[in-house]
C-alpha cells in the first residue's frame, strides 16, 4: 500500500482517539523511572545548564568530527561524575559567578574560532562538565532525584550535544561557520552581562 493511502486512515483514527480521552495509567511509579524523566525535564527547562552544553557543542563542532566525538562522551561522563560528587557532598552552590564566567570564556573561544588543540579542548569540556554536574548533584541531593535524576540529565545533554555538534560538523557553506561564531559572540555577551548583574546585586 502506498504511503499516502495509509496517511488519511491513520490520521482519522488518531483524531477519533482524541474524543475518547481517559485518565493516563502510566506506570512510572511501579518502574521507578520518574526521577529519570525529572532529570531530563530539569535539563531541558534549565537554561543555565542548556547554554554551556550548546556552547560546548558549537565549539567542538567548529573543531571538527574528532573533537565532537570526544565531546559527546566526555561531557555526559564528566557531568555524571561531578553529579555523583555533588550528591555525596551535600554542599551548596558556589557564590562566585562561575556559570557566567563559563559562558564568557566559551563564547569568546567560539567567536574567535580558537584552534584549540585536542587536550585543551578536552579540558574545556571536562571542567565545566564536572562543575555543572556537581551543581546538579547538590540540587538533587536536596530533593529526591538521586542518581536516576543525574542519569536523565546526562542522557538529555548527550542527545543535545550530539545533535548540535553533528549539525555544525555537517555544514560546508562558509557562512554557517560565521553564524556559529556570531552565536559565540552572543554567548560571550551574555556571560559578561551576567557577571555584571552578579556584581550589581552584590553591591
Amino acid at each position, binding site marked *: 500500500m502506498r504511503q499516502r493511502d495509509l496517511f488519511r486512515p491513520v*490520521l482519522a483514527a*488518531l483524531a477519533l482517539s482524541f474524543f475518547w480521552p481517559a485518565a493516563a495509567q502510566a506506570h512510572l511509579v511501579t518502574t521507578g523511572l520518574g526521577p529519570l524523566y525529572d532529570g531530563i525535564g530539569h535539563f531541558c527547562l534549565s537554561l543555565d545548564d542548556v547554554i554551556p552544553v550548546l556552547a560546548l557543542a558549537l565549539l567542538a563542532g567548529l573543531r571538527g568530527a574528532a573533537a565532537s566525538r570526544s565531546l559527546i562522551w566526555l561531557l555526559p561522563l564528566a557531568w555524571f561524575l561531578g553529579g555523583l560528587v555533588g550528591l555525596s557532598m551535600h554542599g551548596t552552590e558556589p557564590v562566585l559567578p562561575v556559570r557566567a564566567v563559563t559562558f564568557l570564556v566559551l563564547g569568546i573561544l567560539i*567567536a574567535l574560532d580558537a584552534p584549540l588543540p585536542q587536550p585543551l579542548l578536552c579540558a574545556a569540556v571536562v571542567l565545566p562538565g564536572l562543575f555543572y554536574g556537581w551543581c546538579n548533584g547538590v540540587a538533587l541531593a536536596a530533593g529526591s532525584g538521586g542518581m536516576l535524576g543525574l542519569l536523565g540529565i546526562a542522557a538529555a545533554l548527550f542527545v543535545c550535544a550530539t545533535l548540535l555538534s553533528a549539525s555544525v560538523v555537517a555544514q560546508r557553506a562558509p557562512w554557517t561557520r560565521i553564524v556559529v561564531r556570531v552565536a559565540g559572540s552572543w554567548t560571550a555577551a551574555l556571560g559578561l552581562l551576567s557577571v555584571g548583574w552578579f556584581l550589581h546585586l552584590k553591591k
Partner: protein
Amino acid sequence: MKLWNHRSAMCKAGFILLALIWASPAQAHIQKGEVGGFTSGFAHPWSGWDHILAMVAVGIWGAQLGAPAIWMLPVAFPMVMAVGGFLGLIGVPLPGTEIGIAVSALLLGLMVFREQKANLTLACILVGIFGLFHGHAHGTELPPGQSGLYYSMGFVIATGTLHGLGISLGLIHRWPVGRTVLRTAGMVILLAGAFFLCEALKA
C-alpha cells in the same frame, strides 16, 4: 517529483490544528522573574529610536562594506556593548552617554549615506566605541527584581535581531535602486541622530 502537494499539506495542517485544540497548560517550573526578565530584556533595545536606528545602521553599513565586515561588525558590537553594559551594571560612570548614543546614530547614518569605505579594524573600533555607549545606557537602566540571565539573553537577542534587520535591509545594496534607498535611509538616520544630539545637549 511534485514539490508541493496541496492535499497532503492540508491534512498535515489539519492534524497540527487538532493537536493545538487539545493543548493543555504547561506546568513548567517557572522561577521568579524568568519571563519578565526575558521580555523586558528583549524589549529594552526597542524602547528608544536612538538605539534602534544605530543598531540597524550597523547592519546596513556592514552590508554595504561586504565581507568580512558584514559579519565582523555584528560580532564586535554585542561584545563591546556587553562591556558597556558590564560597566553600567557595576556602577562605573561613562560621561556623555546620551551624547555618545546620539553621535553614534549621526555618524553611522553618515557612513551609510556616503557608503563610506573603511578599513575593517577602523570600522570595528568605531562601532565598538558606539557599542560601549549603548551598552552602558542599557546597563544603568536595568529594572530591579528581574532574572539577570534571562534579561541579558533577551537583551542580546534583541540587539542581534536589530543587526539582522539592518543586514537584511542592506542586502538590497546589490541593486542600483537599493543603493539609492539605503543612502536615503542613511540620510534619515543622520537627521534623526542630529535631532537626538540636540535633545541630549539641551538636557
